[in-house]
């Protein structure tokens, strides 16, 4: 039982890395170099949060840091800034996952909206503090709304492709044995 769970965790971790690589790859393809488009949603963040709520063991801290650092490097973001925010948020989610698991999906969605809003605000505040050029709000705000909108799809994707669901909570002892 325990070994099976470990193998499943490994499988989900590899799937997450693959999904991350594909998203990054698609974003880097030079299809349209026109400026002033709509910013795509931050699927990687949504995927990470949804997975952390459902199966935190599949996503070690080091993997999160390595993948998001790669994201920062390849997308010309300030080195490590967004990764720093994501690491803090991931730890927050890990610690509060048992409350989130008890929520209905609608309240989880609202919780995610607050979380992503807070993460973006923290990133923005850090940029102001460090005098880093900031992203224009006209592009940033639609991106935040877009990301919140796709969260249910990400959860569905996680359910269908990864085979990861919210664990049903029968009793406390059962939960600690799982995951």
């Amino acid at each position: 039982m325990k070994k099976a769970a470990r193998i499943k965790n490994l499988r989900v971790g590899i799937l997450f890395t693959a999904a991350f690589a594909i998203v990054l790859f698609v974003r880097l393809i030079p299809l349209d170099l026109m400026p002033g488009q709509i910013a795509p949603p931050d699927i990687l963040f949504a995927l990470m949060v949804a997975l952390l709520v459902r199966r935190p063991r599949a996503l070690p801290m080091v993997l999160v840091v390595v993948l998001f650092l790669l994201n920062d490097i390849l997308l010309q973001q300030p080195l490590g800034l967004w990764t720093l925010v994501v690491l803090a948020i991931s730890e927050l989610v890990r610690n509060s996952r048992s409350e989130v698991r008890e929520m209905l999906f609608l309240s989880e969605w609202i919780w995610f909206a607050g979380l992503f809003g807070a993460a973006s605000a923290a990133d923005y505040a850090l940029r102001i503090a460090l005098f880093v050029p900031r992203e224009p709000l006209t592009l940033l705000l639609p991106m935040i709304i877009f990301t919140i909108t796709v969260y249910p799809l990400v959860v569905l994707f996680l359910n269908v492709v990864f085979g990861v669901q919210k664990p049903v909570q029968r009793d406390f002892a059962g939960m600690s044995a799982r995951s």
Partner: protein
Amino acid sequence: MAKRDDNDISFARSLRRLGFFLLLMFLTGLVLLWRIDNPRAERLRIAVVDRLVPNMDWALQPVTKAARMVADFQSYTQIYQQNQDLRQELQQMKAWREAALQLEQKNAKLLDLNKVRLNPKLSYLTGVVLTDAGSPFRQSALINIGSRDGVKDGWPAMDGLGLVGRISGVGRNSSRVIFVTDTNSHIPVLIKPFDQRAILTGDNSLLPPLDFLENSDRVQPGDRVVTSGDGGVFPNGLLIGQVTQGANGRLRVRLSADYRRLEFLRIIRFEPTAPINNPDRLIGPEFPPLAGSERSEMTPASAAEEGVAQ
């Protein structure tokens, strides 16, 4: 037994906490390094990208090509209309070509009569666009030529017609081109025919605005905008686009480069001319001692300059 388990769990937990703080410190250090010693951190980034992206070429190229083919296929639906338009345009172009040829000959004759020496022709390298910046917040692209091919920081990049951007960051096998439309791009420009100077500032749109314009009365929509060469970053006279008027009356530039289909970029080899430091050299460079035969060929104007310099 249960007691030991508890100990194990609390030990693992504190180890995790330690790991978390170490990672947090590491990332904070990285951000600060990037902020304080930016060139070094950017070199680090370029090294990683240079190692990674050219190796992904085998996957990037087919996907890009396939997606372009789909886009091309969609345009087949309007092929008849396009054909008609192109024929009409070609007819106009032929007339212009004839005019240009005649003017070129006339120009060559006049230059010869005046003994004018223009700048030597600029030579260029051509690179293929590998990836874009990946987010609409940054306007840049990665191309497949780098220091191995002699690319240097700051060289201008053009598509066939207009200026696209400049090189910013050179790796061994790849280099990054920051576009004119990026918010970090500020280019000194000259607006023909009245030679008005201005700064072209990127603002994430295809119509970047003109700032610090000398005299906006002498600029009209439709005027040509070229690089002025001020500051020595760009050579002068590279075509950028045409002046248009924005919605709120602000003067903007319609870029000549076609950002929709950037596949190849021309990187112009450009070594800025030596700056003039001594006031007495403002008249001209120090001439080597002239032989008598060469002196007789000099025009009166340059002879006069020579006299002033001495």
